């Protein structure tokens, strides 16, 4: 699979269709995002994130693209996408964070294996167009149903217990591909007391959950990075269900539909990277 992707990217770079490619690179066993500028760079450590015996390394590449595109307005970039990365790109476009999207980047997609889709309870484990990989079956929201089946006091007991493990590292926010605000409510002392550990619960977590309404694209990165193993995404999946029921809005789809929480705000074309 990796060879098909690599050769596809090589062609894009050689033909001059893109100036550079945002992907992942394995350097001495550490995988990190990397900008490949020349076709021959692809022969050094180019990876899809796979690591022996562990789930593949994933990064919020869409959010990185946001910064790269605004820093280099004349160039067109290629970007490596799984299903989740593509949803993040679609959502960032809808939130005006990737102006001129259509001619600013080219997606190079590949499908995730069923095993990974199951592990991440992924609603669409493949991008619209795949250069490589077999499309796996989408997985539905079993984790949400589990909580829905509990009685009110049991739910409170459950969430209080997991929320109280939070060390307030802000990892969930920092890794999130659609958390792009320059000023974050979670750091406003007037709204959520700073300096407390665990943070004010459930306010800290419900605030983040409310802010993910009409935004979270269900990539599961937050849950994956949380050092306290808090099942955050289950909460955000529920929020997504509510937004769909009440407003008919689904995140991470193509088109220019506006999130019900994005009617007010700056003019189209304004990005927080420009602030």
């Amino acid at each position: 699979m990796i060879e098909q992707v690599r050769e596809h990217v090589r062609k894009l770079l050689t033909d001059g269709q893109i100036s550079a490619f945002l992907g992942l690179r394995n350097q001495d066993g550490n995988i990190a995002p990397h900008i490949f500028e020349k076709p021959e760079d692809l022969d050094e450590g180019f990876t899809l994130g796979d690591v022996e015996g562990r789930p593949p390394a994933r990064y919020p590449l869409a959010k990185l693209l946001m910064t790269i595109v605004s820093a280099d307005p004349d160039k067109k970039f290629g970007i490596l996408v799984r299903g989740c990365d593509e949803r993040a790109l679609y959502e960032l476009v809808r939130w005006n964070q990737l102006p001129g999207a259509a001619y600013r980047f080219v997606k190079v997609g590949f499908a995730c294996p069923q095993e990974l889709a199951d592990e991440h309870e992924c609603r669409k484990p493949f991008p619209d167009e795949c250069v490589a990989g077999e499309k796996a079956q989408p997985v539905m929201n079993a984790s949400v149903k589990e909580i829905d089946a509990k009685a009110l006091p049991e739910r409170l007991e459950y969430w209080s217990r997991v929320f109280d493990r939070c060390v307030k590292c802000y990892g969930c926010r920092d890794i999130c591909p659609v958390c792009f605000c320059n000023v974050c409510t979670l750091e406003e002392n007037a709204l959520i007391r700073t300096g407390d550990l665990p943070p004010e619960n459930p306010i800290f977590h419900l605030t983040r959950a409310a802010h993910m309404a009409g935004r979270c694209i269900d990539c599961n990165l937050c849950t994956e990075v949380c050092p306290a193993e808090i099942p955050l995404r289950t909460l955000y999946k529920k929020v997504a269900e509510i937004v769909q029921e009440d407003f008919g809005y689904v995140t991470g789809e193509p088109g220019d539909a506006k999130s019900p929480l994005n009617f007010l705000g700056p003019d189209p074309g304004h990005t927080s990277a420009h602030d």
Partner: protein
Amino acid sequence: MRKLLAFSGVDPERLLLKWVSSAEGPRFAQVVTEFTEKIRILGPSPLADSRTAKQPTAGMASEAS
């Protein structure tokens, strides 16, 4: 918000969002009185214990001084 509260185990009846214009003083008073009555009937919040226990932390004291 109410649905999210219910999912996290907090009685959604404890939240009221109502639009009251600044010109409607008596209506504001009425809405608040009614809601206060309702909360009184529902009793103390199940979150109250953990919150009051955490209030007088060192962090809070130093911020206040």
